[in-house]
């Protein structure tokens, strides 16, 4: 397999706002054609990184390299990168068609060609026939698609998406997640997606960078980040996790090093059930039960102190069954491979 040049490289990139280190010496490499997510809580530096790639913000120090070219000091209009904005930023005085064709109009592409490509783009985002409307006549989801079409019409090398699904309701968001992924496959452009929604990042990305306080905590595939979180923060931020440390860890594994285990990896078994060689176990009592339809969440208080959250799918049980489980003694079992040492 031929290795192509990385789409984006960050070399010790920092961005300070006064005393605040929004981005702190970040090194990063984003591959050509991948769907890359920057995940983190607000204020973690992910959006600042995106804005520095777009050129709206400049690094205080370090270099940003786009397909081998140092773009750190180039203005936005000289970068082959386009952005889908969080608030869509559609031009209110132009029609949908004029919005989409804006990039071509600026580049003085011939009128006929503009029309043709604008219609292709509206087709791609399933808005054929909407060219004459004003953005104010569209729903949130439709504006989102217009913003996407407008950003893709210049065939940028990299498409930046700044929390583009944040304003949509859940159903629409899930639908757009699938569509965005499909569109990315079709156009074959590198997508960089900023989000604070871990589920969104896990669903769509080829790789995820988890940001915290201006630094990257972990970069990896969704499975990597989810199954083998590198730090307690990642374990807690991406999905929910049981973080076990100190005495409690020592009782279970014989080692006081902190580890994390996902609630769905733990099985509820009858007390005294035999423990296989490759499993860990802990005994306790179910203190709380939350029925969530598809699955049920149990809070189990361990006999030696501390508690673990366990999630089980409601394959056979009904809400009546699970709610009766409160106060029952149980043995918890899980495979030794399913813990992740998170040093900390």
């Amino acid at each position: 397999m031929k290795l192509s040049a990385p789409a984006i490289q960050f070399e010790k990139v920092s961005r300070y706002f006064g005393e605040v280190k929004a981005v702190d010496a970040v090194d990063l490499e984003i591959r050509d054609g991948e769907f890359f997510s920057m995940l983190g809580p607000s204020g973690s530096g992910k959006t600042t990184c995106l804005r520095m790639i777009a050129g709206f913000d400049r690094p205080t120090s370090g270099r940003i390299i786009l397909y081998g070219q140092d773009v750190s000091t180039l203005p936005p209009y000289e970068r082959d990168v386009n952005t889908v904005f969080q608030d869509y930023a559609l031009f209110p005085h132009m029609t949908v068609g004029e919005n989409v064709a804006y990039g071509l109009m600026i580049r003085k592409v011939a009128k006929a060609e503009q029309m043709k490509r604008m219609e292709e783009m509206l087709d791609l985002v399933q808005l054929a026939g909407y060219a004459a409307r004003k953005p104010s006549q569209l729903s949130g989801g439709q504006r989102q698609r217009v913003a996407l079409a407008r950003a893709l019409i210049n065939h940028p090398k990299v498409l930046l998406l700044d929390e583009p699904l944040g304003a949509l309701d859940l159903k629409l968001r899930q639908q757009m997640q699938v569509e965005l992924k499909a569109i990315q496959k079709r156009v074959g452009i590198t997508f960089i997606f900023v989000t604070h929604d871990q589920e969104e990042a896990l669903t769509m990305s080829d790789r995820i960078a988890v940001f915290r306080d201006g630094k990257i905590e972990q970069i990896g595939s969704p499975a990597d980040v989810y199954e083998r979180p590198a730090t307690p923060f990642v374990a807690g931020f991406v999905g929910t996790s049981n973080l076990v440390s100190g005495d409690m860890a020592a009782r279970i594994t014989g080692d006081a090093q902190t580890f994390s285990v996902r609630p769905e990896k733990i099985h509820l078994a009858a007390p005294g059930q035999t423990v296989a060689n490759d499993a860990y176990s802990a005994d306790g009592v179910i203190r709380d039960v939350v029925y969530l339809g598809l699955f049920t969440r149990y809070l189990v208080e361990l006999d030696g102190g501390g508690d673990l959250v366990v999630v089980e799918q409601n394959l056979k049980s009904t809400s009546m069954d699970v709610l009766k489980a409160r106060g029952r003694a149980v043995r918890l079992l899980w495979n030794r491979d399913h813990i992740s040492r998170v040093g900390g």
Partner: protein
Amino acid sequence: MLTRVSTYLYQRPRLILFLLLGPPMIYFLVVYLGSLIALLLNSFYYLEEFTGLVVREFTLETYGELFTPSNLGIFLRTAGMAAAVTVADALIAFPLAYYIAKFASPRARTWLYIAVTLPLWSSYLVRVYAWKLILAKEGIVSWFFEALRIDFALDWILSIPSIGGSSLSLSPIGMFIAFAYIWLPYMIVPIQTALERVPKSLLEASGDLGAKPAQTFRKIILPLAFPGVVAGSIFTFSLTLGDFIVPQSLGNSRYFIGQAVYAHQGTSGNIPLAAAFTMGPVVIMLAYLLIARKLGAFDAL
């Protein structure tokens, strides 16, 4: 008791509407529109030359009088001055408004806003007379030109026919300077308000799609600020059209609309002609607004 009143009112939403809206509506209809209608009516009466009395009979004769060469000259002169003042104010106001709206820190913005509107806190007359002194033959402006030994430039400007005069304070140029100064805040504030409503992300999006700053200005900023410019120009244009203090204090002996109205309704008691003169600016403003609408000034509202 109070509860009973509020319950009574709650059940009769139309009554509340009437109580709240009635007084201002009556004021608006009677005092505001009523006086305009009285004005319109008066413009269709005429003054009996011999007796000097107003004859309350419908006639277009009074309007006919507007079309004498000297009266047409008054309209053209005033409209020309209003247009020049509007263009100058728009050119001065735009960069200032843009800076205040998009670059100044919130703190600086407050101070700049106060600075812009500060002149409006003082009497209009005082400011006009201040300009009279500034522009006078022995005033600071001519002193400045002399000190720099470029008084020939001032003399050259004053020698331009129809806008020059014996000194700045006695010339249309001086009037223009005073008008442009006095109405400037009325242009800055609406433009600033329009620009503040343009989200920064629109400008970023334009640049992101390849537009250089000049293109972003032409394609995004200007169209979105245009309603503000039009709103400001309505102020500067109509205020100049109707003013009679500045032409009286600073100009030469040639009349402006405001002075003509003042003279006809005052000394000569020709109320119909004064009313007809007043309808002039109304018609000019209507035409102006129609043209502005044709140009799409209100599309983005």
